[in-house]
């Protein structure tokens, strides 16, 4: 419990989770709201949205690794071209930015699809009533779409929360948790301790704490949302 190394990994993990939730959820809701409601556009959008979800983790990592290489990667070269000193293997900030971007690219679609399903289930009468009541589009979002999306949003949030604690493959493939320890999240640390160093005792303790952290977070979130629902 007093291990500084564990605390650092946990801190990084929480920061990462917070960041991706703050980006993916609003972005997902936003994209779902702008998606077409009928016509051929629906199919095209749904297929486009589902594509990243079909790609395995390690492929995402490998893909972004090449994509972001500072000297030959499309992204890396471009960022350097416009004047950034982009290098994910040496600079912790860019390493983080790349891992977060990767996760957002990979998983925002899940939030979009869930929210889109929620939006589609709102009967037309709600939109018609709001028109007659003279509501603005912000009010439609605030008082109709958001409350109706709440359930699916809860599920999206829980899924992303749990998944983000599982993050392993992408930063591992990208940088092996580096530079230094800067992208060593809980799971990577755990594997390093358990399988790299074969310190099974501390690793077991870590994994139990890891489990309880996820459980606690999910429970808090779920209870908060359900209490809101029953009131």
């Amino acid at each position, binding site marked *: 419990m007093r291990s500084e190394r564990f605390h650092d990994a946990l801190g990084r993990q929480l920061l990462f989770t917070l960041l991706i939730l703050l980006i993916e959820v609003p972005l997902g809701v936003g994209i779902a709201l702008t998606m077409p409601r009928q016509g051929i556009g629906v199919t095209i959008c749904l297929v486009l949205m589902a594509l990243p979800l079909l790609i395995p983790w390690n492929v995402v990592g490998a893909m972004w690794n090449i994509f972001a290489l500072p000297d030959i990667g499309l992204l890396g070269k471009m960022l350097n071209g416009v004047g950034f000193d982009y290098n994910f293997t040496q600079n912790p900030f860019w390493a983080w930015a790349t891992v977060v971007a990767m996760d957002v690219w990979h998983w925002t679609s899940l939030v979009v699809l869930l929210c889109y399903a929620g939006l589609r289930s709102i009967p037309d009468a709600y939109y*018609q009533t709001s*028109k007659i*009541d003279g509501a603005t589009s912000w009010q439609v979002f605030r*008082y109709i779409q958001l*409350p109706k999306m709440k359930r699916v949003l809860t599920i999206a949030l829980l899924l992303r929360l749990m998944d983000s604690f599982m993050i392993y493959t992408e930063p591992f493939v990208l940088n092996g948790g580096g530079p230094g320890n800067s992208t060593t999240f809980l799971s990577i640390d755990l594997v390093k301790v358990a399988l790299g160093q074969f310190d099974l005792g501390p690793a077991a303790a870590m994994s139990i704490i890891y489990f309880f952290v996820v459980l606690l977070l999910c429970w808090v979130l779920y209870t908060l949302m359900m209490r809101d629902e029953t009131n």
Partner: protein
Amino acid sequence: MSSITLKSLRHSYSPNPQTEEDYALRKIDLTWRDRGAFALLGPSGCGKTTLLNLISGLLKPSEGQILFDERDVTTLPPDQRNIAQVFQFPVVYDTMSVYDNLAFPLRNRKLPEAELDERVQRIAKMLSMQNQLKQRASGLTAADKQKISLGRGLVRSDVNVMMFDEPLTVIDPHLKWELRSQLMRLHQQVGFTMIYVTHDQTEALTFADEVVVMYEGQIVQIGTPEELFSKPRHTFVGHFIGSPGMNLLPCEWSAGAAVFAGHRIPLNKNLPHPASSNLQLGIRPEFIRLASEGIPAQIQRVDDVGRYRIIKAEVGGTNLNIYAGEEVEIPSDSLHLDFDPDHTHVYCDGWMHEAKG
């Protein structure tokens, strides 16, 4: 308050309508006077809701005009038409309290808070919801939610027309009566023009001064409940209204009279020779009497509905329903029927065959 005039209104959901079948509404001409209570009655898919959405501005008509009094509102958006609409499924803003729900349309129209409060309180009292104002709307029953939908229209002083799209569909049967009478009372109290869409004839007939019956995108008859019952202009009206509906019997025209299953049927008027040979005789079960002589019929079944009985009988291969009070003695197998000439009508191609002039 205002009257509503529909001029040559047509609507099609397809962008390039070619034939009559492409139109959900085929040419509607109609005037609804100020402060009246009107029902739009028809089976599902006959265009009732389309017509309602055209009046409220949720749809733009393909052709024709909509006038409120003399003002052309055809191209105005819903919030500028001074209408309110209550839908089949109760619509409330779940996260708001009952009070905020009722105040919502007024706040959007920038009404001063003091006046707003006075109105909301008054309407809540009318709806007997003054004790629920602080409650969250999501926890209410369907009936209460529907009252709020209605209330959001009532609070607005600018509402000319209140439209109801089958508003009692999801309400429990025992609450239906209560809500219905509350609605009728409010209509008298506030005096808005009311248009009520339904496929339930009881609802239409109890609510409205005048009922518009629609069928396949057309208006087939406009009239008081009494007129629809005793003089259906179209076989659809005859069949749709009444429980069971009008008996429609195939007949022929011979020497100035209708002949059904070899029997001349007496009518109370002289009719010219019909233009088509597609003829039907229409008579309601209520106007057929059991007699000692007349048209012979075979009884097939007798349904006891409580206060009266319905005899299902057969005449020359055609089935018909006959209404019989509890006091009438019904023979066991065969009987003779007597058609009331005042209520026997001839239909030519579905439309009532009438004397000209």
